[in-house]
């Protein structure tokens, strides 16, 4: 029983990081109807960004999240103009291919620069021990940071003029244009934000686990499950769905091998598509 509770609590903490990783994908998907297949590699680049900053300056990695987020945003803006802007409004396959190409280019670049050897941010925080179980300080800090970032994004989208403009473009791009909103600029910022969130989640994951340039793939797959579960364009919904996914992982692992988790996640993915096509919290794009 205690084992189950410990496992679920671990799942809850890591679920916050899954939620943050999915928020970027959900935002881009919801606002511009683009499934960003370069999301995973940008998570990996966020991991490397944090690693190199931490190695260079040796300061608290959670402080270094800020430059990682800024670099992620700038990278997102560049990727938007290079590979996304011209395919918006085209058939979904076009944007899939375009972002997949970006993904392959960046993975190739990362493999050349850093190989696929594992890297590790050598930083740890004191954990909390309850009975025989220990919950690491890194998990608490990562979960807390993810929640703060998610709430920050929610506040930005709902309480700032720019955020409202993003939601307006997501709701009805033509109507927003008629109201004087420059949709190209809004989409660029939304894509930049999506990539910044990916980089932030990568940075947080890097404080917990070792990583390679290929590590973003696993988070991208989880992000798909979370996004489908939450519905599109609902950042806090993505966070909650991420936590649910983490809790589910925590609840099933005491009873079956951990290697069954991907199967369970994708069964959930299909069930969510069938039973809640608009997601638990969301709407279709």
């Amino acid at each position, binding site marked *: 029983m205690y084992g189950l509770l410990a496992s679920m609590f671990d799942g809850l903490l890591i679920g916050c990081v899954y939620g943050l990783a999915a928020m970027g994908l959900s935002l881009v998907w919801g606002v511009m109807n683009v499934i960003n297949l370069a999301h995973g590699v940008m998570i990996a680049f966020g991991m490397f960004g944090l690693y190199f900053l931490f190695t260079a300056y040796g300061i608290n990695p959670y402080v270094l999240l800020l430059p990682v987020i800024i670099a992620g945003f700038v990278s997102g803006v560049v990727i938007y103009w290079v590979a996304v802007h011209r395919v918006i409004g085209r058939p979904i396959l076009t944007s899939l291919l375009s972002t997949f190409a970006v993904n392959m280019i960046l993975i190739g670049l990362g493999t050349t620069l850093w190989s696929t050897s*594992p890297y590790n941010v050598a930083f740890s925080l004191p954990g909390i021990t309850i009975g025989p179980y220990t919950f690491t300080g890194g998990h608490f800090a990562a979960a807390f940071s993810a929640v703060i970032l998610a709430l920050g994004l929610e506040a930005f989208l709902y309480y700032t003029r720019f955020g409202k403009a993003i939601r307006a473009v997501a709701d009805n791009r033509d109507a927003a244009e008629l109201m004087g909103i420059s949709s190209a600029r809004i989409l660029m910022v939304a894509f930049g934000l999506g990539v910044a969130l990916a980089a932030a989640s990568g940075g947080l994951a890097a404080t917990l686990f070792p990583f390679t340039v290929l590590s973003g793939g696993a988070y991208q797959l989880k992000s798909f499950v979370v996004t489908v579960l939450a519905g599109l364009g609902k950042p806090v919904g993505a966070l909650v769905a991420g936590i649910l996914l983490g809790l589910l992982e925590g609840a099933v*692992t005491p009873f079956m*091998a*951990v290697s069954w988790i991907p199967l369970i996640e994708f069964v959930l993915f299909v069930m969510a598509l069938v039973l809640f096509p608009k997601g638990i919290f969301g709407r279709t794009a």
Partner: protein
Amino acid sequence: MRWRYPITLAGLLLLLFGFGSAQTITVGFTVSRTGSLNVDSSEQLRGAELWRDKVNADGGIKAGGKSYQVKFVNYDDESSPQRVQQLYTRLILQDKANFLLSPYSSGLTATAAIVSEQNGKIMITSGAAEEKTYSLGNKYLFQMFTPANEYLTSALDALKAKNAKSRVAFVYADDSFSNAVVNAAKAYAQKIGLNVVFAEAYAPDTTDFGPIIDKVVSSKATALAGGGHYADGSTLARQLYSHKANIEFLSLLVAPDSPQFVQIGDSAYGVTVPSQWELQTTFRPQYGPTGAEFAKMYQSKYNAPPSYVSAGGYAAGLVLQHAIEQAGTVDPARVANAMNATDLTTFFGQTKFATAANRHGLQIAHTMVLAQWQKDKSGKLEKQVVWPDNAKSAALVFPLKQGSAVMAGR
């Protein structure tokens, strides 16, 4: 006499190129420059390259009155069996490799062996301990490492000697090598009376061991054995430490043997590794350098100490060189006969291959030791041989209370 000059020229060219190619032996293999096996495979490559450079510097392999320079052709297999199949075919058919070295890992070697056997090419396998591949009737495959079923034997013997009531958990990568090791180890643990309380395989690319560690803790295991290769093994050791899993004895495959393992800091302390070779094991070589000479050459070339995987890479070349010299030719059939007759002690230990059809090429003479990461007087991490008793350089640190006051106060 106008034809005399072209014929002379042609003769010279033939002599030049014909003679030149006859003096070079091409050894082909793949390296996992990318993918999950990158660290271990690169160490194997370093060992092999050191052998090649030493042989060539010494004038090449001498056989039948000729000297053969060794040329390597290798490609990145991306840690993928599909690439191994394509690339070994290319090495044989396009690059005309005379001999082959195996890729790193049992899984990739099993794939490469199909291609090498189909083409009748000798392949020396190092970093490939699983036995099954050698029970398929192969004729040209020769194994350097002690087979997988013996990997954890010394660790379990050492554990039993310290605490016969240990509760053992096996947590291991779901790959052919680790499965072979742990299946044999589970049976051995039960045979010697240890209590196996938990066993679970994980995907080799796992980075979050938290859920499995919670299960290990729930099982009240006091000892853990398993792991797989560098990436997962080093992560498992680190997370066991940060989760204070409170186990007394930890033995992981392959990863702790790498000099890079020291990078995980205090998490490395006390971790044991079944090892194919350690510098402290002093074999008196009949052939090739001593262990100390090998380690010195390696350190000087790579500015890092060698692992047993590196030593295996060098020794594989050395055994091939010996067989070619014994055969006096590079003819594959005659070199294969020389390999079958090999009974040789090098710095790596004794090497002898089974010749019965149902286990041909299996290593039957090489022995392993158990090494453990300990701290020297200055607090620096270093590896010591702790088992068997007659080969140990230090006593086994036991019990190891991971993350507890015992470790924190060290």
